């Protein structure tokens, strides 16, 4: 039977640093999925996950066990991802390109139709990714957590350390910002 998180952490605190590898193996898939929502390329994903896990290790003594370890590690993950987004802000890569054929086709097919279709999620993901690239870091973080990961306002408050009213205000502003970006991308002509 697998050891619990608490047992492994107790062992690590007792000096058995090698046990940290078990925690890494247990949580790295989830951390990779999280980091991929914020990184620009795969090499950056690995750097982000490494930064998360190093910070987890260095702060293990501060986990008191009053919340599940998974919540605690995800809190660190969100904050490291937010730091990475803010670093992107300082190192913008390239201006917005025109819509691809796939993206234009998605907009033509979906913009006038009220139903949600399940086909061609790749084009939607690509459009959202392009729009998210242009968002301010806080806006992107909020919309990723709230709308892509479908988390509640309370969960987001807990993960980010922001108050609930601040989360709501930022969500409102983020949605408005995304609408402006979509307008700049030229999606309005498909409405």
């Amino acid at each position, binding site marked *: 039977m697998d050891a619990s998180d608490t047992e492994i952490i107790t062992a690590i605190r007792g000096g058995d640093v090698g046990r940290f590898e078990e925690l890494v193996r247990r949580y790295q898939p989830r951390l990779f999925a999280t980091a991929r929502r914020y990184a620009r390329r795969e090499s950056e994903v690995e750097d982000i996950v490494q930064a998360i896990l190093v910070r987890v290790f260095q702060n293990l003594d501060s986990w008191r066990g009053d919340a599940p370890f998974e919540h605690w590690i995800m809190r660190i993950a969100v904050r490291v991802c937010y730091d990475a987004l803010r670093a992107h802000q300082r190192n913008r890569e390239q201006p917005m390109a025109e819509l691809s054929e796939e993206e234009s086709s998605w907009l033509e097919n979906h913009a006038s139709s009220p139903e949600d279709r399940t086909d061609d999620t790749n084009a*939607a993901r690509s459009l959202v990714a392009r729009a998210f690239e242009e968002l301010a870091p806080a806006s992107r973080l909020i919309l990723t957590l709230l709308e892509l990961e479908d988390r509640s306002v309370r969960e987001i408050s807990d993960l980010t350390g922001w108050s609930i009213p601040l989360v709501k205000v930022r969500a409102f502003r983020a949605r408005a910002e995304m609408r402006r970006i979509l307008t700049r991308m030229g999606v309005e002509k498909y409405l």
Partner: protein
Amino acid sequence: MNLEDLRQKLVRSARRHPVSDAVPYAFEQRIMHAIRDAPAQDPFLPWVAGLWRAALCALAVALLSGGFHWRELVNASASAGDGVPDAELLEVAVLGDLPGFEPADPDAPTP
């Protein structure tokens, strides 16, 4: 359909596209090397941010209370009509509570 409806539809569709949770081969080995090579965290680092915030708050409180105290002295002096210069009032307002502080004698000859 308006822009917000389209935005929500776009996000709902993107949500259905799964994000990969694939892990590079032997990534845990990389992590174990990284934690062994990482410098030990400064134990005072968590205190630094808190102390800076406390220092800024203390400065803000000092400025506010000094300003308030000075205003009180100005108002008191104006109603008494003694014509004490603002600079002297400011000096007393900010330094008045310090032990050993003596306000300058306005009648003393200037050097």
